[in-house]
């Protein structure tokens, strides 16, 4: 477990150091116009976008007026609290599957967001939790997508269903679900081709995959995860809206948080569309996928250590961030 946390902190280090430095400069000043300017800048630089920033500033303003924080900790606490309120509670058991067998999860997103890598990591994670996993390679468009997924399947010990490049993705998804049932898989992960949400025919293709999978296996897909790159700006909201409309995206995998980007757009997505983040990606290795923790996310956006419980970074008792979840 200690290794797990280590990786998490290493992953978030870039984000934290950079923001923390700027943030600490703010503390200790009176709550002046200058303070608000700088807070606004912090939030914008984290990609929260105009709507979310305005909302947080307004709430923070009200709270600061009422509570008059006296020191750094109190001020941080207030802001953190207000931001936490904008996010739903963490999933208490992210590795749980719903009772149907197989569970079918569909993974979608724009090109280059990290879908295939995320599918590979999910497969590895569920394999580590002793689940039987089957991957359906429904990205039949991108050159060498099959090969990339085959590597991941081999690494994680998941089974793989694929067809020749150019095959109908819905047919691959169908095959995967049938094979998953036949072979007694607990989880069928379907990787789809990256597509820009503006390409209507490609978005309709997603709808078809959802229909085909649902017909073969009632209730499927049980989860439809949209992969969002943390460096994405406000276009992320548009993406989420379109993918939710076309395929009912109901959760987000926020990838590439190991850089300096904060992925603040997910807060805007949560606010405007109510789609929560489920997982975060912190690197390219199989273990670099973790359940989302809102406390850690808020901490990273504000550039502070994500919790104050006095636990050391390496020796946290459970999953990162659980300690301060309210």
């Amino acid at each position, binding site marked *: 477990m200690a290794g797990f946390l280590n990786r998490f902190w290493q992953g978030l280090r870039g984000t934290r150091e950079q923001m923390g430095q700027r943030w600490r400069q703010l503390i200790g000043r009176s709550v002046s116009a200058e303070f608000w300017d700088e807070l606004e800048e912090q939030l914008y630089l984290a990609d929260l976008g105009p709507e979310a920033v305005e909302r947080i500033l307004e709430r923070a303003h009200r709270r600061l007026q009422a509570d008059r924080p006296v020191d750094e900790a109190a001020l941080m606490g207030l802001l953190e609290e207000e931001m936490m309120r904008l996010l739903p509670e963490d999933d208490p058991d992210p590795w749980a599957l719903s009772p149907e067998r197989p569970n079918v999860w569909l993974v979608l997103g724009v090109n280059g967001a990290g879908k295939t890598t995320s599918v590979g990591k999910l497969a590895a994670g569920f394999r580590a939790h002793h689940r039987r996993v089957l991957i359906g390679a429904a990205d039949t468009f991108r050159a*060498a997508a099959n090969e990339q997924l085959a590597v991941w399947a081999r690494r994680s010990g998941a089974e793989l269903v694929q067809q020749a490049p150019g095959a109908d993705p819905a047919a691959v998804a169908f095959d995967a679900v049938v094979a998953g049932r036949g072979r007694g898989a607990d989880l069928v992960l379907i990787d789809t081709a990256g597509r820009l949400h*503006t390409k209507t025919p490609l978005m309709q293709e997603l709808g078809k995959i959802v229909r085909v999978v649902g017909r073969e296996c009632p209730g499927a897909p049980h989860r439809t995860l949209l992969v969002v790159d943390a460096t994405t*700006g*406000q276009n992320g909201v548009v993406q989420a809206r379109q993918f939710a409309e076309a395929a009912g995206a109901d959760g987000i995998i926020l990838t590439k948080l190991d850089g300096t980007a904060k992925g603040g757009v997910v807060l805007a997505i949560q606010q405007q569309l109510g789609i929560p983040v489920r997982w975060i990606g912190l690197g390219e290795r199989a273990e670099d996928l973790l359940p989302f923790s809102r406390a850690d996310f808020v901490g990273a956006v504000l550039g502070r250590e994500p919790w104050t419980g006095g636990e050391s970074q390496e020796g946290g008792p459970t999953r990162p961030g659980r300690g301060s979840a309210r």
Partner: protein
Amino acid sequence: MFESLTERLQQAFSPLRKKGRLSENDVRAALRDVRMALLEADVNFRVVRKFVAEVEPEAIGSEVLESLTPAQAVIRVVRDHLVLLLGGEAPIHLSSEPPTVILLVGLQGAGKTTAAAKLARWFHRQGRHPLLVAADIYRPAAVEQLRQLGEQAGVPVFFEADRRPEELFRLALGRARQLAADIVIVDTAGRLHVDEELMGELERIVAVHKPDEALLVVDAMTGQDAVTVAESFSSRLALSGLVMTKLDGDARGGAALSIRQVTGLPIKMVGVSEKLDGLEPFQPDRMAGRILGMGDVLGLIERAEASMDASVGSDLGARLNRNEFTLDDYLTALRQVKKMGPLSQLMDLIPGMGGQMKKLKGQVDDHALVRVEAVLSSMTLRERRRPQIIDGSRRRRIARGSGTTVQDVNRVLKSYEDMRKLARQMRGGKRGQRMPPGMPGLPPDFLPPPR
């Protein structure tokens, strides 16, 4: 989603217009809208601040205050300044001693491998002989991806197993000489700018041979972090420009302005489609309009040109003129329009989508096109060529075949008749009747004056 800046400024100014002259404060308020538009477009917060401070003096100048169309005047000032900051078109520099070496670097998923293949294709079409080098030895199947893309582009791809990227690069230069390749395009692994080890690898690559162009590949959807990324990369190696990818989406691409401002790097090429031919030289005026959310008329025209088969188009025009336009031609035309993309999306490219046009947008129904196509497809070839034979019984059959009603079939036939009538009028009618009356809702000067 967001209203366009044009629309917002028009709204902001319209009550003021009634009371007469604008004040400086009115314009300052308008600049707040400009600021929000830029932030929504993901222009870096600090770049926005600087930008607004710079345009303010000009925006509150007398030209704007005394203009009859202050909204347009403000936009022109903002837009011109934006175009200026985005810089001119910047061609890729070709070495006087071939081969020209182009190195592509960037974050994971920015689109380096695709951009490399597109660049190769671009040069290949100009009669040059590029060699692609697969130096991404980390991502599973990245080499295989480039190999397949190279094959599609008709360009050789160099790779040897068990070599470090810098070794691969050295060997590739030798291979380029053997093949008499005049351009070497190196696809590197995606890397995070905070990854010491991989950034060091880039330094080792450029130590082998200094590339003529070191291009940072940036996703158009990138947010505020674009500046940090560009600064980190350019602190480690001498970048010469940017390639912006995925502009075929609807991201406003504010990162282009941010990076240009902070690093001074010119934007050289832009990726505009998934296809291998989808790479174009950068055009600052179009990018400016896009960042401001003002639509992209040129983009619209080009999209039409790209999807329309020119010979089909002129053929249709000729038939229309000779009044030989049949339902078969109608179907062809319809399919051409459909290829351009959904209508509602096409309308987004039109600038000044204000007032009445906006309402119109809500009514545009792409399904209507699908129905029309179904009706036409359910007709026999003979019926399409000689519509006059379509009687009641045939109408019922067509409706059944297309899953529509006889009313739908009638509507299609009616619109076809209207089209023929219009064609007749345009051919024989008076000059004044040639064009439909001016489109409502468009400001009179929504396009900038020709430069």
